[in-house]
């Protein structure tokens, strides 16, 4: 280490060495051009936005998936409800049909309401002649 320092001293004292004009040493530094700066900031923004978009997309995808799952559950529940309602409708239709069954109607009429079958049917003659219909009509 000392040897190296002596050598440097000798070089300074060397008469052969021409005097150099004192020039201000220009310090070089990296200068960012405007475009470089813009590009960098754009890149940064782009990266940020991309990441944000990525997160947003992931969030949207997750939210959509959750929504689909939620709607799927809702759909399943509605389908089950629909099936139950349809089943209940059929059961009620059956109940109505059972209530309308002639044997039940007759039983209720005779036993609960005390009705009796008429022994004679009386037809009321219209003032104008009434002809028999040629075809069977009406509810039977």
């Amino acid at each position: 280490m000392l040897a190296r320092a002596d050598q440097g001293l000798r070089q300074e004292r060397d008469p052969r060495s021409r005097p150099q004009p004192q020039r201000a040493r220009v310090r070089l530094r990296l200068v960012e051009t405007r475009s470089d700066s813009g590009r960098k900031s754009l890149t940064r923004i782009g990266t940020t936005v991309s990441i944000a978009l990525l997160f947003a997309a992931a969030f949207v995808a997750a939210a959509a998936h959750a929504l689909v799952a939620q709607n799927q559950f809702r759909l399943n529940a509605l389908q089950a409800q629909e099936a139950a309602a349809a089943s209940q409708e059929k059961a009620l239709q059956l109940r109505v049909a059972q209530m309308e069954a002639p044997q039940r109607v007759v039983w209720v009429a005779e036993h609960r309401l005390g009705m009796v079958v008429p022994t004679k049917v009386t037809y009321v003659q219209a003032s104008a002649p009434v002809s028999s219909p040629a075809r069977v009509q009406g509810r039977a």
Partner: protein
Amino acid sequence: MVGPRLFSLRAVAIGTALILAGRLVQVQLLGGATYRNYGRSQMMQSAVLPTIRGPILDRNGAVLAMSVPRTDIYADPRQVTSPSAEAAKLAPLLGESQASITTLLSAKTTFVYLKKQVGNSLTKRVEALGLPGLGFLPDTTRYAPNGNLAAGVLGFLGASGNGLAGLEYQYNSLLAGRPGHSTVQVDPFGGPISGGVHRVQPPVPGSGLELTLSTAIQYEAQQALAKEVAASHARAGMAVVEDVHTGQVLAMATVVSNHGKVGVSGANDPLTYTYEPGSVMKIATFSGALVHHLITPTTVLQVPPSLNLGGYVFHDAEPHGTENLTATQIIARSSNIGTIEIAKKLGATGVYNWITRFGFGKPTGLGFPGASSGIVRPPATWSASALGSTPIGQDTGVTAMQVLDAYNTVANGGLFVRPQIVKGVVGPNGRLRRRPPPATHRVIPKAVATTLTSMLEHVVGPGGTAPAAAIPGYSVAGKTGTAQKPSTTSRGYVPGSYMATFVGFVPAQSPAISAVVVLDHPTPIYGGSVAAPVFSQVCSYALRTLRIPPPAAGSQSGSQGSGGVANGG
């Protein structure tokens, strides 16, 4: 220089790598498809989506048969943790004994039915128990809300849900619909994966049938028939009521007596039971003779007390001396000898042709399962006595529906109209697709039909064989039949066993409905005594139900009405 230990280690490593590589090739390449399918089968859950069978309705939309969704409750005993504890909770709900359910839940199997065709509310209560190892399968049950009403016409289903008899069998493919299929990607817990595979082929519900039957008239027919079968100690009875102009069957009933207990039969005898008709067959001979101008209603014929034909002696139901009777009197009194005298004028071929023209020996066109065409033998196969027996309804086999079709033809002015039971098909959307009107063809001229109607009115008159068929206020035309039953074990007939028939239509001058009533082995034996009153009761009810008023007093020609118009002829 590699040491033996390092060598062994390398060999083991290389060997292991080779085994793994080999297994990889085996799994990924050779067995890839198999494992892929295996994986899919674990992820995919396929299910059959049950469809619902279409209903059968009457002419007014009243339900005669319908299917209702139900649930089958089953168990996988391997997953049942405590059979006795679960059975204690299930037994009161399912209405079974705890011991029997414990036995089922302890079975060494993976599937046992605990209860089939359970209703919604009970299913929910069982589900709410949250018991492990229980499962629920969708099912349907077929109901007849009117009990046994028209049971023989409707038929029934087998355990698999397919029709085995009657209309349920005839229209099975239409009523049954088509079950659907679903394939869903499921998670390990069996729940559907959102966004996963979800393929659904929805079930196609069965179409319904709207019949021409009227619930009210059908009920009345069954009741009246059952009452008469019981009163006359008959073995069975059948009745059909039809709309004269459209051929629509309004009621079709079969009643049987089993050891004195009378009930509705599951068979449909009016279409499937063949019997010798007796005197109702005389209409063919009279029609032919009128069409060919061999007789008129007032033509007088000499009727001896008996007639020997081909060695076989024919008699009338009531013994009498030689009489001179008009053609009208012959049919009104149902004289066998008189009819045979007319048949002789017509000839064997003529009698045969007229019998077949009225539809005897041919299918009715309803296509009902097991429907009989009857038996009418061609003249070439007739015995020497057949010209006597065939015109009076022996040696032939008919169904009650064929008999009604023949008389309905007369009521319809000589125009044969094919009968109908199914009015149309009700689509799953509830819309009725009506069937085209039935085919018709002329059998006898209208004038001959009118003449025959007048002659048949006398059957119900005071001098006829069936005054009991009269309906107050209306004129009735018809014919009785009292036929011996052929023996099934030997030649000849069963002594004392008869088929009693009455067939007719009302109002005679403006016919709206026709009906036939047949009793098997009744006491008394005569159609006019046992079948005619049922005809009167059922048709009287049908007229009121269909709101067909009595003809105006001036237009009525019969004697049986309460209007008191004298019997002409």
